């Protein structure tokens, strides 16, 4: 479903050309839960940007759902993100003065969906992400970190994306809440979602089925995770 072939990415700064990704190739099947792991500066964030259609590769191809999206103009990329990708960020990126429900429904607004449908789907997504209904009308600034990340996960799920991309989703959380969030991803995976987790922590990566290790812009390891850690997000 995801096919990355010989993807390179260069950043030019004046006359200096820095090659961040040096020909990365891999495939991800529908329903997989993979972790992309690497130290900072390894190129994993750049890879995530390309996977999330926020950026395009300098060379090589990236196909999502059978469509090559490696050379699309910006607005086309925006449409791909709107339809197929759900992002979960380390910093949550919620609108602080808006209610939980409005935050979650925001992607559907850009999809042009009616209010009633938006709110219905936002509620479903929130319940799927484990945030009980009584908090749906709270302002996001009133929530705890764990709750904020659940809202962000719900927002990533609301457009029923082909992949959920989580960039260091536990980075701003204490370990107990972090485990709960990882449990949520595992439950979503069990329900058939394709989840890609980007992290520098082996502990976090060990929750995935498969681990890709990136170092200095190259894919150095692609292995099945034999000793998978399991978490539950039961509250």
């Amino acid at each position: 479903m995801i096919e990355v072939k010989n993807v390179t990415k260069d950043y030019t700064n004046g006359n200096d050309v820095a090659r961040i990704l040096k020909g990365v190739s891999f495939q991800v099947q529908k329903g997989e839960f993979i972790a992309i792991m690497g130290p900072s500066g390894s190129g994993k964030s750049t890879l995530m940007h390309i996977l999330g259609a926020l950026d395009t590769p300098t060379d090589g191809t990236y196909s999502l759902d059978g469509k090559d999206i490696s050379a699309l103009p910006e607005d086309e990329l925006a449409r791909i993100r709107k339809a197929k990708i759900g992002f979960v960020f380390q910093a949550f990126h919620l609108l602080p003065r808006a209610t939980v429900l409005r935050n979650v429904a925001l992607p559907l607004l850009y999809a042009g969906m009616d209010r009633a449908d938006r709110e219905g789907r936002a509620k479903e997504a929130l319940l799927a992400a484990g945030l009980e209904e009584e908090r749906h009308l709270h302002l996001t600034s009133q929530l705890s970190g764990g709750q904020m990340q659940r809202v962000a996960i719900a927002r990533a799920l609301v457009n029923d994306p082909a992949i959920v991309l989580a960039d260091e989703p536990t980075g701003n959380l204490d370990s107990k809440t972090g485990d709960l969030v990882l449990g949520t991803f595992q439950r979503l995976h069990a329900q058939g979602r394709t989840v890609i987790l980007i992290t520098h922590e082996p502990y976090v990566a060990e929750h995935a089925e498969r681990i890709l290790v990136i170092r200095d812009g190259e894919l150095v390891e692609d292995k099945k995770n034999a000793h998978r850690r399991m978490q539950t997000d039961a509250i």
Partner: protein
Amino acid sequence: MKITDLCEEIWLGVSSNKTRSGLTMLGIVIGIASVIAMLAVGQGSKAQIEANIQSIGSNLLLVQPGFQRGAGISVSAGRGSAQSLTREDATALASISGVSAVSPETTSRQQIVAKGQNTNTSIVGTTPAYLETRNLNIAEGSFFTDAQIASRGKVAVIGPTTRDDLFGEGGDAVGQKIRIKNMEFTVIGVTAAKGGSGFTNQDDTVFIPISVMSTYFTGNDMVGSIAVKAANQERMSEVQASITALLLQRHGIADPQQADFSVLNQSDIASAASSATQTFTLLLASIAGISLLVGGIGIMNMMLTTVTERTREIGLRQAIGAEKEEIVGQFLGEAILLTVLGGLIGIGLGYGIAWGLQAFMGTKTQVAWSSVGLAFGVSAVIGLVFGYYPARRAAKLNPIQALKYE
């Protein structure tokens, strides 16, 4: 994205930070309010001056004696110094076609005594046609008649200010005696107040028959000036030409350059005055316009700050699928909403200031609908112009960098 949803996002964007939105609007509010108020002052003074000019009479032509020149030398004693107009001239002018009324007028300043009170004011010797040429009304009693002119009746009609001075405020004047130059006159009427008009205050005047004026005060048949009322505005220049022609003929003057009289057209006075007020209004409007411009720059400044502050939000919106147009639409919409709201408040405030100036300061103001429309249009345009650059800047942000922005 649906347009209603865009509007809602715009509203939420503006209303979620009320203090800042309010301060941003303030510049526009002040700008628009000052445009409205300044134009109202300009319009008001223009209307007042026009009313003043109307109060001397409408469709009025004033015939005045010309310069008096010594024989052979060109020393002028000034306009109106010659005594060249007679009552017969006035009678002749009445027969010109297009003339609806003619009143000869001779003015003299005299001391007036009544019941121990006295005042110094102008005495106008004239005919009953004066009421029509000068748009004057009688409040009490009556004006003198042609018969009283023929019989040189010692009767007087006084203005309300003169009445107040001589008989106390609102005092009973009709039937009372007043003395002018030791001659006793009977007051037979009081004119209606016209308000202080700029040129001569008709409320502080005593009107007597012109025959009495020429017999007892000036001693000859000459008149100070002749007021001619044209039947309508369109015929004024035609009537003006006819007056000139007729008087030249009556005075036996062949060369119009040597005319011993001049004819002033009221619409000339009016247009001179209105061009002066126009300049005044323009001056006020340009001052107000500058404050509006400053308000617009304030909007741009605040929108740029907003875009910087909300960089991460913009990045997020882009990440979840907002297209460039939608980002531009939101930020441009917020700028326009701020200016339009500011504009509406400014219009209200401008009205308030204009009302206050008139109610408490006595400055005549008049809010023109055109200036309201103009102010509103200008504020919307300011929103568009000064909101566009920040909105463009927001849409051009790279989502990756925007998300990482601290």
